[in-house]
């Protein structure tokens, strides 16, 4: 199962990707799924199992994110 981390800003998404990769969490930037958000740009896809760990890393770095949602694909 995959999950996506949604952000208000694509700048925050890129920052998050950078920090997650530095912490060896497998992640990928993907287009924001339209059914999850009306934002332009991209979000970060992770393994759903890494959700809590990713959330802790983002919080520790004060990286604002909107939500983490399970994602099966469109």
């Amino acid at each position, binding site marked *: 199962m995959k999950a996506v981390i949604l952000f208000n*800003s694509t700048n925050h998404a890129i920052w998050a990707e950078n920090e997650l990769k530095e912490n060896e969490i497998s992640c990928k930037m993907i287009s924001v799924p339209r059914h999850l958000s*009306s934002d332009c740009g991209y979000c970060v896809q992770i393994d759903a199992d890494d959700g809590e760990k990713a959330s802790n890393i983002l919080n520790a770095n004060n990286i604002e994110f909107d939500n983490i949602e399970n994602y099966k694909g469109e």
Partner: protein
Amino acid sequence: MLLDKTKNSIIYFDNAATSFPKPECVTDAVLNYMTQIGANPGRSGHKLSIEAGHIVFKARKSIAALFGLKNPMQVIFTSNATEALNLGIKGILQEGDHVITTSMEHNSAIRPLHELEKQAFISLAIVQADKTGIIDPKKIKEAITVRTKAVVVNHASNVLGCIQPIREIGKICKANGVIFIVDCAQSAGVVPIDINRDNIDILAFAGHKGLYGPTGTGGMVIADDFDHKKIKPLKCGGTGSLSDKIDQPDFLPDRFESGTLNIAGLSGLFAGSQYIQKKPGGIKGIYSHKNELQKHFIQQAEMFVQNFICYSSSNLPSAGVIAFRLKNISVSEAAQILSDKFEIMCRQGLHCSPLAHQTIGTFPEGTLRFGFGIFNTKEEIDIAVHALKSISEGN
């Protein structure tokens, strides 16, 4: 094209206007973006757009590291230091505010302030520097009133190269609850700066001078503990975020970065800022190099050039900018001969800083100005001293 000194005898001493040549990694980065990436970051989800987003983030992180900033989102990219100063100044001021600035400001700071003063929107106090261009922090303290909202100070003079005691001034601002805005157009990449330790709230930098990025780059850096919502955006528009709303986002950096950024420029700025930070000795090394060049120039010119008058002090720390003239020839004519006959590029006149020239007594004629860069050498200075000697003697 890079300046090839084996084929070209040009000596470029106009680095205070913009640095040249740029390191090869900078031109490579710009070319790589324009030929291999090209896309708009933050708008689309395709890989080229994401790659462009990575470039912007790397540039932001590199600038944050340069100024000791923890949160890279507090770095706001603008087209130059002037735009950053306008954003900081106009963004925080409200009707009735009192502002303190100095007699060493560039027009990029004094003009927006003076415009607001003329509209009777703010009141302005201009603290006078001494003849060496230095501001006494005590005078700033004395000028603070109950209505003082901000202090705006030029860190390194674009006329004299002298460096203001910003940490001390910032401490006074902090103690009095006053916002401290620092114009680091000349000092960024030249003088070590730590936004938090130096007590700066808002810092403006040029990307194309000491950071060796392309022209059209610069930015405003907001201290980690400063509430960015106190700053109103100068422009509103598309950010790629909150696209379902017509409200301007209030989070950073989107609040201040509407419209497509100069990604080609930021590619080069990232490369340039990394280049100077990774140089042996880092920024401290660059600072020592420029001070050595300044001392060498003043010493040699005073020894060999008749009619040489120097306004910059060789005893004070400097950003490698020197104001001088020859007593017996106008500054415009001397600059023209330096360019035409000796292929030495410099700037003459008032350097967009009428108040600074009034302070040192060189208004309205102005001075000649040499602005040294990281690639300049003592040998080039010796050639310039010889040229000045020749001009001074009428040869």
